[in-house]
């Protein structure tokens, strides 16, 4: 299980490829199912064009909380591995924000755990978005529920 915050743009597929290579070594022939979610920055939100975004976090608590989420997922489903990478700092439209990947023997566990991790992350992990629009910058007040 790995959890990372990244202050610079990252390539989710490249990250997945590197992580998967390690898994193929450790657990060859076991990972029947991989469920992945990638969240990226859109250039439009709540009816307004968004030019950029700043993602603030709570250093220390955020990493700890993400770790707790993957551990909670591992207790609920038989997972072989899990990965969360989340951006912080200044983002531009199309930049990846979050990558969640979950490996399991079977698809039901992989799908459910990936979804669970994203919902927990969205509703409870300490991150805050500030969007830059033509009228200046604004804090996003709440995430949409699932």
């Amino acid at each position, binding site marked *: 299980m790995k959890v990372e915050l990244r202050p610079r743009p990252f390539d989710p597929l490249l990250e997945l490829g590197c992580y998967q290579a390690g898994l193929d070594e450790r657990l060859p022939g076991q990972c029947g199912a991989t469920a992945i979610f990638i969240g990226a920055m859109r250039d439009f939100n709540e009816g307004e064009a968004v030019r950029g975004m700043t*993602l603030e976090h709570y250093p*220390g608590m955020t990493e700890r909380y993400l770790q707790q989420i993957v551990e909670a997922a591992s207790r609920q489903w038989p997972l072989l591995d899990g990965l969360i990478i989340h951006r912080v700092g200044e983002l531009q439209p199309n930049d990846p924000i979050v990558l969640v990947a979950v490996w399991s023997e079977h698809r039901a566990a992989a799908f459910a755990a990936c979804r669970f991790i994203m919902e927990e992350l969205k509703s409870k992990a300490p991150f805050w978005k500030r969007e830059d629009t033509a009228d200046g910058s604004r804090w996003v007040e709440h995430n949409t529920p699932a």
Partner: protein
Amino acid sequence: MIYVKYFASLRDRLGRAEDQLDTHSDLTVAGVWAALWPDKPLPPNTLAAVNMEYAELTQSVRDGDEVAFFPPVTGG
């Protein structure tokens, strides 16, 4: 000493990112806020953490603890 942190829009509204509270009385999380901001009720929906774990406003705070206040989260 209690170490207090504010994040995101709450920090911007308060105009500061942290405070220190030198107290020897037994305080709850809500009490920490009230001691620092006697004229400002805690904004609705504000979340709190003690030592980087989510906490209720009624949770007790001890000397040396880090208490954080922040608005609803919007990551992912």
